[in-house]
């Protein structure tokens, strides 16, 4: 009973924290919208509009009302799913975002699978072989991934793997030929093409995503490797590792069954954060590979001062991070009995 009550309060407290964070986030996006030097009215009416037109639009946007009232309207809009219209595209912002987000999610998910799939084993490997040449190789490898500017590696990779070797597809999400062939249902091209049974499109999409995803994955694996290595070194120095060896477990069994299970929690946290920053949009790689994703969208909006769209993008990035933090909190509770 008491256990259940503690859990209930824990969950309630968590929800409270999320609500407060969300409110703070909304305040932030609201004030970004108000304080940015861009003039939303001017952006709509253009430079040549008469004073009267300007005043009219100014009032219709509610900008003559007190700030708190404007914020209340903003809250109401957000909770009814109305994020305004993009000045740049003339479409509802939410529709634009729903269009670009799947491309980024697809790329980011692919990339994090590569990053974690590469980084975690390498980190463990490096920790186990600390200060031996294998460790040094891994460290140089990950340092390389961390310090190479990704637009440069992106271009080099395109030149080598696409232009010269022809192993992968070039820029875009699929070959020009296939564009518009598959009906957009989820927006995830790999899934849509499978649903439609268009295997050619699927292979083309896979061929296009593999290179940018590998580059992003490599660059985030650098961080994941380093963190895994240091978490693992921490655990390998613990006395319970000796206990496991004394019981007769082999080195590998000890590493994976005892030490590794103790770093899962920390790993989940850093992988979630790495995933978050990938979702936020990899502007550079999206630009190099002409990937129509969230990063490009956000950057274009910033450049053109499309305030409704910028506010919504910031809000989405914030929500993504709140969500990932929540996820890692929940996993903490599952993985570590001491936090229950």
């Amino acid at each position: 009973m008491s256990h259940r009550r503690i859990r209930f309060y824990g969950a309630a407290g968590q929800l409270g924290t999320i609500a407060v964070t969300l409110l703070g986030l909304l305040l932030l996006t609201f004030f970004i919208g108000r304080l940015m030097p861009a003039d939303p009215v001017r952006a709509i009416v253009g430079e040549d509009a008469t004073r009267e037109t300007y005043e009219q639009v100014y009032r219709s946007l509610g900008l003559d009302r007190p700030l708190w009232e404007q914020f209340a309207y903003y809250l109401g809009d957000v909770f009814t799913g109305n994020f305004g219209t993009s000045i740049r595209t003339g479409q509802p912002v939410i529709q634009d975002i729903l269009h670009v987000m799947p491309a980024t999610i697809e790329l980011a998910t692919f990339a994090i699978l590569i990053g974690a799939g590469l980084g975690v084993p390498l980190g463990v490997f490096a920790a186990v072989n600390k200060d031996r040449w294998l460790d040094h190789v891994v460290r140089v490898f990950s340092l390389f991934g961390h310090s190479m500017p990704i637009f440069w590696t992106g271009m080099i990779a395109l030149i080598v793997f696409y232009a010269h070797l022809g192993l992968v597809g070039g820029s875009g999400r699929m070959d020009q030929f296939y564009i518009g062939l598959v009906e957009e249902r989820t927006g995830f091209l790999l899934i849509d093409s499978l649903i439609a049974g268009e295997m050619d499109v699927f292979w083309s999409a896979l061929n296009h995503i593999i290179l940018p995803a590998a580059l992003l994955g490599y660059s985030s694996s650098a961080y994941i490797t380093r963190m895994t290595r240091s978490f693992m070194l921490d655990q390998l120095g613990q006395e319970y590792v000796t206990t496991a060896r004394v019981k007769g477990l082999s080195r590998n069994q000890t590493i994976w069954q005892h030490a590794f299970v103790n770093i899962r929690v920390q790993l989940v946290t850093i992988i979630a954060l790495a995933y978050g920053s990938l979702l936020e949009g990899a502007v550079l790689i999206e630009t190099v590979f002409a990937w129509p994703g969230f990063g490009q969208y956000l950057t274009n909006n910033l450049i053109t001062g499309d305030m409704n769209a910028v506010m919504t993008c910031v809000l989405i990035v914030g929500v993504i991070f709140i969500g990932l933090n929540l996820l890692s909190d929940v996993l903490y509770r599952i993985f570590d009995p001491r936090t229950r």
Partner: protein
Amino acid sequence: MEKPILEVDNLRIRYGGASVEAVRGVSFTLGRERLGIVGESGSGKSTVGRALLRLLPGATITADTLRFGELELLTLSEKAMLKVRGRRMSMILQDPKFSLNPIRRVGDQVGETYLRHFRCSKAEARDKALAMLEAVKIRDPERVYDQYPHEISGGMGQRVMIAMMLLADPDLVIADEPTSALDVTVRLQVLNILDSLVRDRGIGLIMISHDLNLVRNFCDRVLIMYAGRVVETLAARDLDRAQHPYTRGLLAAQPRIGGARAPLAVLDRQPEWLEEKA
């Protein structure tokens, strides 16, 4: 005399990169008895214990003989060593706060020893673990089995440790300062449990400690180590008749209840204690 469990002759251990050996020519034999190894911090007593299990990463171990039963430990492959550790020789570590895996259930950690060395089902390992928890006088084994290390006390943790290390019925148990992390009040309790289990099962015991009184009460024989060497070996009951000046110094430095209030004697270390006997 019965065949000894363990014969150690001229054991030398050097940690990687160190200029001097941590253990310099230690020799002793062990039958079905309880042997205490006493010495100050850094004297090499724990190093000897870990060397027997070949769990000293980065250290170089050499010996003329390091025979355990019919096995020559130093020439054994790592694979063969895996069958020795936990099954035939095990070690009780110092502090259960650190020596138990914090995120695995206590009972599973105990049962793992059995699972590792015998072909059996998980249910069978669980039964063995429960029986062993009972043998170390844990009152409610079923409940404790499902608890995590942070949920049990230090004394109970050390009893869990004992259960884990005796479960596969080894020939030799090394207890590396098994009670120094415990409250004085539970020390005796834990030691008595260990003592009776070791006696009942005829297990050889090496008790590594810096506590002369503890060793006097729970061991048959005592090795006194100083700076990586055994300076004196004697029966526990003869401890008061020790010859070596180091041992005499240690004894003299002990406080006694009801003794004179004079300042305790301080060891006067002599450089010749460091020299190896020819």
